């Protein structure tokens, strides 16, 4: 038999579904956001962890940013008899040009495009499947075609569709890369070892190893990535092999990875993305919680007679609290279920917003764990936010069955000084053990939920601390604004006075509404300002003297040719040509560096990265010497001067941040591996570099003459007017097909596009937070709708027109919007300033247009929300309302 109390709970809910609609929505939006992000995270995990072998391209990968060393080759050879399958893949950037059928076509009319070239062998892919269209065997597609080529040597090539679109080609068209010709034999649909196309220099072109050789692109010092993958037999255990390889290759500059750490960067990026999105989702749930608290409080206010009656019948407060808590949790449960639906729908939408950043083929199936987690979070949030208003049940006197309630709060406010009021409040709070315990419980609970959401205790504590500070600041600032409003001379017009007074009457939810909207506004402001600053950095703040082109891999013997092309055809374009050589740090002050020990550590990349070295006689233009001295010019004329320097080692100037992280000081020695040759240099000076100048800048500059004979190439920068960009690229590529031309504008545009996409995904969620704030506002308005209806009816009966009433309501909601906007934008400025200053190292700019637009939009949102919540009340004929009294 069902207990009467359960029936009571059920019937009370049952008689007031519409009243709880907003409570459901508040919880559903929060749970929905969390479920969507969680489902998305699980899907990403599925992709990344699902077939890690395919992602890495093997069980183990050895990779070099240069040609494999002899010792490396020996290691590989020694593995041959261990029952492993090997696959060799080479990746490099290159220029693809379309061969004109007409030899008379001017060079500058030939289309060219920067591509990401990948040369594969017959064993590729060791795991996973290459998807191409038409679906023919890869070997056949990459082989030299029987016909269709106008040049030789000619090979087959697989290309991404974007290349076809950009160069206006089709399958069957001919391409030139380096010294070889290629016939496009198929469109590349999916590479098993590449899951996201986010940050790429250009479309992928896949060719055979034989074809790569024919292109003559890979020369000494070329920028290249050599990957040797192996699949090991089941009997070979992975860890000992990894240990052995790392040991044997420790000085070879090789990156040794196993499938267990496939795609570490992408994984870290997506983990971070999911973390941020998840925390925004949690914020939405907290904002929704404000709506829950308001709804429950409003509901209880209407239930006071019943609560008093139950008390006269002998029910104690804990019994009644349990009764209404059960109701709240039941409602929260329904809201959470609704949230799951919202989440599944949002989850389908997220990939659309994040297109290009996330893996292209994501499974979109909902999984059970995030859904259950969402429901549990929703119910726990309901518990946390309804418990506080429910505690008020204890103060409902049973004597209310025969006496009207009197609100004492105003009297206390009027009769006591502010300090006494606060002291009284604190004293009550401290003396009320139950309330104290519940308050602590709620704080601990919310912190616990945040920890659960952030998957990190420290971050959870930080997040809830930040939330608490934000809420206190928002409430404090709102309090000050309403205090000011109280002292503003109130306009004589009744309707205006009524509107202003309405914001301050007992039992209002003004602060809750301001808080709920303010949080969303704060989030949106912060994101908008940070996004604009970063986009500004990428796009608008490029100095006018910044180069428009980078040319890389210019061979030493091509230097005169390169200069002559530029000087003859583009005489007005200033250029800068510097020799570079790639290196890795192997020791500092004679102490060998173990790159493995620095992997994954904060700033560990200073130890593991590749350093491009250059030599320079003079201190580069944008650099400022902060310590030590620049070398003496005269020494350059002395060949081999480096070895004659007093220190016996050539001198190097290091960028100051790198020096700080590498713990280098003046006089430290730095051992570098230049393409297998050891090179020791002594730190002679430290420099400050303005990286945003977009000129060629280096972490390390070695004194001239130090690495004569090293396998260096040249890189060049030049600046041409936009209309000459294509002709310049074509002119260089036509005579030096191995040189890669990188258009700075294109790269920045690409980065900007991806960044904008990312920002859009995050902002979409932040917008949901604002929507939740609006729902909270409607919820709060609807709680007092009977009182409002009654007042509107009286004013109408006295002759107030609908227009006048709307004006009065407009003032009320406009003030809420203005206050929420001011406070939210103020805090958003503070938050974005801290983020830009401490995290991005950027200057915060006051942007009046953004901020005032934000304020206007918030007022508009508040007005629209307010009218949405009250427009039906305006339509009621006054008599029908007053007759029901």
């Amino acid at each position, binding site marked *: *038999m069902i207990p009467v109390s359960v029936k*009571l709970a059920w019937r009370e809910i049952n008689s007031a579904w519409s009243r709880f609609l907003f409570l459901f929505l508040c919880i559903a939006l929060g749970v929905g956001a969390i479920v969507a992000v969680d489902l998305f995270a699980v899907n990403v995990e599925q992709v990344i962890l699902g077939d890690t072998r395919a992602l890495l391209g093997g069980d183990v990968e050895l990779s070099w940013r240069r040609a494999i060393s002899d010792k490396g080759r020996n290691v590989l050879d020694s593995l041959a008899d261990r029952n492993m399958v090997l696959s060799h893949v080479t990746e490099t950037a290159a220029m693809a040009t379309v061969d004109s059928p007409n030899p008379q076509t001017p060079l500058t009319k030939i289309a060219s495009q920067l591509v990401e070239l990948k040369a594969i062998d017959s064993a590729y892919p060791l795991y996973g499947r290459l998807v191409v269209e038409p679906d023919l065997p890869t070997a056949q597609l990459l082989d030299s075609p029987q016909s269709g080529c106008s040049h030789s040597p000619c090979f087959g090539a697989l290309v991404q569709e974007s290349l076809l679109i950009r160069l206006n080609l089709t399958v069957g068209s001919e391409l030139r890369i380096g010294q070889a010709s290629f016939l496009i034999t198929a469109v590349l649909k999916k590479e098993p070892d590449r899951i996201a196309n986010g940050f790429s220099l250009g479309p992928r072109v896949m060719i055979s190893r034989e074809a790569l050789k024919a292109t003559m692109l890979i020369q000494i010092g070329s920028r290249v990535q050599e990957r040797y993958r192996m699949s090991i037999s089941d009997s070979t255990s992975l860890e000992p092999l990894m240990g052995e390889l790392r040991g044997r290759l420790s000085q070879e500059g090789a990156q040794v990875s196993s499938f267990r750490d496939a795609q570490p960067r992408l994984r870290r990026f997506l983990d971070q993305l999911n973390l941020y999105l998840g925390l925004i989702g949690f914020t939405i749930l907290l904002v929704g919680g404000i709506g829950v608290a308001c709804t429950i409080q409003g509901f209880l206010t209407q239930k006071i007679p019943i609560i008093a*009656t*139950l*008390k006269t019948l*002998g029910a104690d407060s804990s019994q009644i609290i349990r009764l209404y808590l059960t109701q709240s949790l039941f409602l929260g449960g329904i809201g959470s279920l609704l949230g799951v639906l919202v989440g599944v729908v949002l989850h389908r939408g997220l990939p659309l917003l994040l297109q290009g950043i996330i893996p292209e083929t994501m499974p979109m199936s909902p999984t059970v764990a995030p859904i259950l987690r969402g429901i549990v979070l929703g119910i726990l949030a309901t518990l946390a936010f309804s418990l506080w208003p429910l505690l008020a049940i204890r103060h409902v*006197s049973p004597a209310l069955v025969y006496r009207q309630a009197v609100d004492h709060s105003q009297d206390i406010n009027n009769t006591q000084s502010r300090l006494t009021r606060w002291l009284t409040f604190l004293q009550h709070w401290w003396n009320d053990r139950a309330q104290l315990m519940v308050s602590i419980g709620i704080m601990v609970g919310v912190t616990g939920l945040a920890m659960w959401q952030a998957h990190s205790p420290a971050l959870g504590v930080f997040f809830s601390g930040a939330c608490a500070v934000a809420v206190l600041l928002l409430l404090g600032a709102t309090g000050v604004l309403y205090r000011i409003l109280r002292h503003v001379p109130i306009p004589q017009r009744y309707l205006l006075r009524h509107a202003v007074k309405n914001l301050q009457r007992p039992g209002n939810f003004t602060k809750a509404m301001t808080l709920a909207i303010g949080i969303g506004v704060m989030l949106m402001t912060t994101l908008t300002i940070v996004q604009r600053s970063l986009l500004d950095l990428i796009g608008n703040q490029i100095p006018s003297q910044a180069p428009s082109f980078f040319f890389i891999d210019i061979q030493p013997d091509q230097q005169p040719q390169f200069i002559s092309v530029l000087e003859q055809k583009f005489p007005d374009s200033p250029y800068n040509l510097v020799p570079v050589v790639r290196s890795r740090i192997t020791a500092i002050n004679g102490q060998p560096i173990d790159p493995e020990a620095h992997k994954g550590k904060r700033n560990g990349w200073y130890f593991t990265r590749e350093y491009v070295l250059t030599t320079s006689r003079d201190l580069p233009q944008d650099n400022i010497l902060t310590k030590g001295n620049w070398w003496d010019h005269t020494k350059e004329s002395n060949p081999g001067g480096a070895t004659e320097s007093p220190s016996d080692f050539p001198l190097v100037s290091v960028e100051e941040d790198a020096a700080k992280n590498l713990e280098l000081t003046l006089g430290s020695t730095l051992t570098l591996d230049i393409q297998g040759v050891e090179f020791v240099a002594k730190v002679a000076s430290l420099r400050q570099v303005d990286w945003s100048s977009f000129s060629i800048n280096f972490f390390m500059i070695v004194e001239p003459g130090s690495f004569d004979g090293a396998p260096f190439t040249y890189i060049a920068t030049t600046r041409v007017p936009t209309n000459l960009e294509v002709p310049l690229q074509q002119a260089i590529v036509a005579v030096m097909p191995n040189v890669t031309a990188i258009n700075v504008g294109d790269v920045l545009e690409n980065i900007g596009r991806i960044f904008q996409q990312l920002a859009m995904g995050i902002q979409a969620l932040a917008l949901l937070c604002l929507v939740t704030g609006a729902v909270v506002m409607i919820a709060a308005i609807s709680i007092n709708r009977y009182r409002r209806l009654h007042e509107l009816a009286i004013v109408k009966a006295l002759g107030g027109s609908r227009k006048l009433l709307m004006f009065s309501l407009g003032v009320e909601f406009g003030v809420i919007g203005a206050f929420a906007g001011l406070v939210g934008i103020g805090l958003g400025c503070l938050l974005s300033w801290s983020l830009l200053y401490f995290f991005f190292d950027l200057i915060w700019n006051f942007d009046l247009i953004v901020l005032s637009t934000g304020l206007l939009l918030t007022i508009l949102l508040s007005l629209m929300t307010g009218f949405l919540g009250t427009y039906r009340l305006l339509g009621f004929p006054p008599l029908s309302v007053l007759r029901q009294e």
Partner: protein
Amino acid sequence: MELRAGSQSVKILRDISFEIFTNQVVAIVGPSGSGKSTLLGLLAGLDRPTQGSIRIHQTDITTLTETEMAHFRRQHIGYVFQAFHLIPTLTALENVALPLELQGISTGTSRAKTLLQSVGLEHRLHHYPVQLSGGEQQRVALARAFIVKPPLLLADEPTGNLDSSTGAMVIDLLWELHQQHGSTLILVTHDMSLASRAQRILTLRDGAMVNETTQPLPSFEA
């Protein structure tokens, strides 16, 4: 007993002292605002006096905590209101069974049925308060008050919201139940004919007790 409203406080009751014996029927009379309902509320522990003490069955209820008072009330006191105060979302049967359930007794329904039968509402068991007339609602309230067999039954103008014939019927029923259960009955009324059926009449004016009359039990007269 003082009440505060704003910065002003009003003394509602002062210097009241009386004793009531088990099984007695006592009527409290007086003009509106004389403090009758407040006195009854104090006896039920719904309010707390600012001074003085109230002892019921050896228990000083003024010293009880809120929870202890609630537990005391559910075992010792039945209360009937002028405005009935039925829970609108529960049926008549459920309303009557509720006090037992609050005590953790889950078999209250059969007893509630018997009581509703005894007040003549066996055909209204599953009706909600809004579907019942005023008289019927008050009869449900009577059944609800008696279901825990309270030693003390308090009735605050039980006929105040009813027409005279319905009121008379409800009063007959109240007396009948009082006799059946042997409860002490204290009722507030300004209907002197109803008061005259009580053994003692306490008269209040401006918060003070101005008169007390004791009359022989009607049964002794018979």
